[in-house]
């Protein structure tokens, strides 16, 4: 599986200023391939998350294209893009994205039930939660979890369907050293198993697990 972005940039409107917009991501190319873990590091506000969201099909680029195995994802209809995202992309967002009315286990299972009528993979979900140290809280509601636990739950949820592409936005933010290692090791393992993994982070630790390290500064990507 290959995710390629060609000449993508992102402008955001800026009200009340002399310029009508500012460019969060300058035109750039990036290619994520199977079996490789890429880390994009940079300071807060450097455009990392904007880049990740464009790659995830959640934020339409102002220019350029994003292709998954040759398919321009922004040329797809909302339904087709959503199904593609569900089937092939595992996104670990930045904030707390738990559904408060579901248990931790059910939250983890959500991607598997959106389109499938088959029984959700309870054992896989429980195993993933166990690997991330959440086995004992799988039946709790998200409100009972700490920020670090919620983050690890997001990781488990993104990995549940073994997507071909994993996009992680600050997956280790707020985690202690032990859990940081746990999460990064797991992502590395998924890359080794054939997934394309992209981690955007402002922490240095992830670099140790990367096949390729990129830096983002002022919306510009450099090696």
């Amino acid at each position: 599986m290959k995710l390629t972005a060609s000449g993508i940039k992102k402008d955001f409107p800026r009200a009340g200023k002399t310029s009508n917009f500012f460019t969060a991501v300058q035109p750039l190319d990036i290619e994520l391939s199977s079996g490789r873990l890429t880390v994009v590091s940079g300071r807060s506000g450097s455009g990392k998350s904007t880049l990740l969201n464009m790659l995830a099909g959640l934020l339409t680029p102002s220019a350029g294209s994003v292709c998954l195995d040759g398919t321009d994802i922004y040329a797809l209809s909302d339904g087709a893009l959503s199904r593609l995202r569900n089937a092939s992309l595992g996104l670990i967002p930045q904030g707390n994205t738990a559904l408060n009315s579901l248990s931790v286990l059910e939250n983890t299972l959500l991607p598997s039930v959106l389109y499938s009528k088959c029984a959700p993979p309870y054992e896989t979900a429980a195993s993933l939660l166990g690997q991330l140290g959440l086995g004992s809280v799988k039946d709790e509601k998200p409100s009972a979890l700490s920020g670090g636990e919620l983050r690890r739950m997001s990781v488990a949820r993104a990995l549940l369907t073994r997507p071909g592409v994993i996009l992680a936005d600050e997956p280790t933010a707020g985690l202690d050293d032990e859990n940081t290692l746990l999460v990064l090791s797991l992502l590395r393992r998924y890359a080794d198993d054939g997934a394309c993994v992209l981690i955007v982070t402002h922490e240095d630790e992830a670099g140790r697990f990367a096949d390729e390290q990129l830096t983002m500064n002022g919306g510009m990507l450099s090696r």
Partner: protein
Amino acid sequence: MLSVRKLPLRNLRGYASRSAAIILFAALTSAAVFGGLLLTGAVRGGLETVRARLGADIMVTPESAKNEFDAQTALIKAEPGYFYMDSDVLEQIRSIEGVAAASPQLFLASAKAGCCSARLQLIAFDPATDFTVQPWIADTGTTREMGLMDVIIGSSVSWPSADNAVIRFYDSECSVIGQFAPTGSALDSAVYMNFDTCRALIDACRSMGLFKYADFDGDRSVSSVLVRVKEGYDAESVASEIRARIGGVSAVTAAGMLSGIADGLRHVSSAVKALMLAFWLPGLFMAVLFFAFMINERKKEFAALRAMGADRRILSRIAVTEALAANLAGGLIGIIVSGVLLCAFGGLIAGRMNVTFVLPPLGKMLLTALAALLPAVLAAACSSLAALGIISRTDAALLLKEGE
């Protein structure tokens, strides 16, 4: 098993206080609409039933009975009473132009004492000339001809023993041969019989020293005369003619007798309309507002679902199902509660408001319930639109970055 289909209900349970508020407002709205429609329908039904059961265009009573008989309230909350006039009046009425038929009735009130089953209005009709009571006897299901000491009771009259169907007045036993359908009026607490039975009961009453008219002549006394007017004649004009030509009588038209109930119906209708407006618009507004609050509060959850690959159709289906489920649940609760309250206390409420009350048949009640669900459906539609607006404006990428 977790599924997208179950998500809306899980969400409603997860946000219990907000969901309860939506259900409460939907319930209040539907309760007001269903209660209002049912009450108005029952009062109107009562009026129509009484109008049909009255069967006469004019009722003539002795003028001296004014203290005991108020034509405008007699059908609603009449205190059992009796009064008499000479039966000569019957022929005089028949001779008046425009009178098609005239039939006498004889009244007696039973006593609130051990000699009687209950204090009730006893009404005797003349089977040979009657046109107001007999048409309804067929509906009671009785095939037995009414003989001496046979009675047919109004719907709200109960008798001590259903097995032997006997009711007792002035220590005399009468056989209950039928029971009329409810009219929601004072007619429901009356007991009907022929003249011979009534005269026998008057004799029994007199022998017990409880009869107040010493000069009563059983063969020459009647209490009222019911008149049917010929086609093409105005009942009010004929009633005026009766009052003018026959001294000592009062003649009141059916419209006059029903005017009290009709006024009551108008008041009830106005009050119900005001009540429905008072509950419906604010209830609708609040239900939509609370739902919009709830969706707005969960924007990030919708963004998370989007990130997992849920398309807009799935998000819309979740929001619309939640809106429908909450509002329909509230609507059903409101309808059931107001229905039960009205069935239990409708008669009491109507009595206080001086109107008749007959609940419509079950089929009509179900149709009314369906109509009363419309505000809940409207609230669900408005809530869904509000939710879809919020969801369509939701920038998943931006929301997923918030609260980092």
